[in-house]
């Protein structure tokens, strides 16, 4: 298996078959050893011993991929943090912004929504009628920021620490999920692309995206491996962190539909955990500010309102901007690119429920009438990275993608002050 897996991506279906058979045999061995006769127990013991020898002789897939994961994380974060430090030192591009932001390290990574999350962590929710309110921001991330307070970290610092460590966890989780969709080499490429994705500077800002990505991918990976309790917990965390997190319920429900009768209740429970956590967020906002969907109502003050003609309004807004608003064009371009990458992912046989989930993450925000921030929302559409991995199959394409994405990542980080992600 190990020798096949280090080979080209063409043998992916063979590999997956072998992998599945290996999983089955491993699960069969234990019952024989526990329940069988002395002879069969001895035979199973030998099988196990041989298997252990083979397993311990070679590192596991994840162990083998860890250097890639750590390298991608460290290199991409060095790019982001380094760029943030340089632009802050140069007071670029808006010197006046830095005058108001103060001299905190990595102040640009604590801008925009990071300020709202910090206010929620420090002061809790307050729904100010007819005005932008912090109820629009989900509570999991600010609550987690408060967990780090006893360690002596300020809310500014804890947000950054959580986001950057969250990305490391996300890379591990995305790898574990991607190896169930793609050949191992492609799964490795996909985590490099997660780390280098142009809007990926958000994963270093005091935003919940990296943790939610980790939770969504982790829930999927756990569900594929039938670890339903873990999948339920991670799905709940995803939904409590960002509204997009609830869409992990789609692939979990599809996996539940294929589960055996014995597993079905646990699988259904895992799928229902994300909507249940969303309901918990609603209950919390009902208790604190008196409005269970305050998070949705607050969006109106940012000009977002769901309507059946929302996508039409979004396109109209884009056409009306007609080159005056390059940032809107950036968000629209990324939305289109994400959609195309989802199509590529579908063609490489990423399971369709994940494609549906990714489409919902990219397309549904457009129903609020704007492309604004869709480039950031789409970061959580996991099959996008599988699509990128497919495009980067040849060495030359992979190198070109890495260089282009790294440059865009640096450019995006340098212009955070200009426009919110």
């Amino acid at each position, binding site marked *: 298996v190990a020798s096949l897996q280090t080979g080209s991506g063409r043998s992916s279906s063979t590999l997956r078959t072998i992998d599945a058979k290996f999983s089955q045999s491993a699960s069969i061995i234990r019952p024989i050893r526990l329940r069988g006769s002395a002879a069969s127990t001895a035979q199973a013991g030998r099988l196990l011993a041989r298997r252990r020898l083979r397993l311990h002789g070679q590192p596991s897939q994840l162990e083998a991929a860890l250097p890639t994961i750590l390298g991608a994380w460290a290199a991409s974060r060095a790019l982001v943090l380094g760029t943030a430090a340089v632009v802050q030192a140069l007071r670029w591009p808006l010197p006046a912004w830095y005058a108001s932001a103060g001299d905190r390290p990595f102040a640009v990574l604590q801008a925009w929504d990071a300020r709202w999350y910090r*206010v929620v962590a420090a*002061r809790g929710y307050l729904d*100010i009628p007819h005005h932008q309110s912090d109820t629009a921001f989900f509570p*999991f991330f600010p*609550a987690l920021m408060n967990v780090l307070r006893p360690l002596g970290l300020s809310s500014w610092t804890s947000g950054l620490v959580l986001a950057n460590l969250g990305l490391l966890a996300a890379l591990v989780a995305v790898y574990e999920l991607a190896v169930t969709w793609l050949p191992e080499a492609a799964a490795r490429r996909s985590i490099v692309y997660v780390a280098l994705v142009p809007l990926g500077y958000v994963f270093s800002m005091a935003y919940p995206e990296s943790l939610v990505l980790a939770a969504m991918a982790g829930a999927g990976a756990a569900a594929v491996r039938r670890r339903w309790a873990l999948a339920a917990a991670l799905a709940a965390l995803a939904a409590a962190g960002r509204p997009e997190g609830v869409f992990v319920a789609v692939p979990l429900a599809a996996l539940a539909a294929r589960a055996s009768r014995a597993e079905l209740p646990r699988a259904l429970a895992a799928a229902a955990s994300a909507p249940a956590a969303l309901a*918990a967020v609603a209950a919390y906002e009902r*208790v604190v500010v008196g409005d269970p969907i305050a998070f949705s109502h607050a969006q109106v003050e940012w000009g977002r309102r769901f309507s059946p003609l929302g996508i039409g309004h979004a396109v109209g807004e884009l056409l009306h901007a007609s080159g005056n608003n390059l940032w809107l064009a950036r968000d629209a371009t990324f939305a289109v690119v994400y959609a195309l990458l989802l199509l590529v992912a579908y063609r490489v046989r990423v399971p369709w429920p994940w494609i549906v989930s990714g489409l919902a993450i990219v397309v549904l925000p457009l129903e609020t009438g704007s492309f604004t921030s869709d480039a950031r929302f789409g970061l959580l559409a996991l099959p996008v990275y599988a699509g990128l991995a497919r495009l980067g199959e040849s060495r030359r394409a992979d190198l070109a993608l890495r260089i282009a994405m790294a440059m865009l990542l640096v450019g995006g980080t340098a212009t955070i002050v200009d426009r919110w992600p």
Partner: protein
Amino acid sequence: LAVRRAILVPLLAAGCAFTFVFALLPRPSSADGFALRVLSRLEQLRISGSVIHLRGATIIARCNELHGRRELISLAHGGRIVVRETHVHLVRRQRLTVSAMQPAPFAAEADLAGPRLLYVHELIGREAARSAAVRARGATYLVRLSGAGPRVDLVVSRATLRPLAVEYRSRVLTARATLVTGRRGC
């Protein structure tokens, strides 16, 4: 048992999520909550002007809302000030009482003349920063509108939260204005 588990696990997840955020996030202070109620009351009514008491002089001020969420303040002795959000512009400089005494002056008259939208903006700014300050005084409450530089307090009725007066205090000037509410005005 299996069906019960299918129901209980999501409930448990929801319960854990709720408990986690409930335990770790602070609740707004009572001052924040009270200031919100005052804000809500301010958005329901109009202030047509005020009677400013300033170093022994009494000045009548009228306030009218203009297009584009601007407010025009007309002082009885001829001065006119336009307020937009928290920005104050002098339109006609005629015998402004305070301008003679302060280099950046007409903000005091603007604060005292009853520009409702200015009060709303100042209160929202304090709420957004969670720095609402409320103090009881007799049958009224003093709600802090501005604390940086001059201190401006809105005096509201304890029973109805109706704005009654504004108090202005800086290093060189202390003044008070009685607000007139009505159907028209700012």
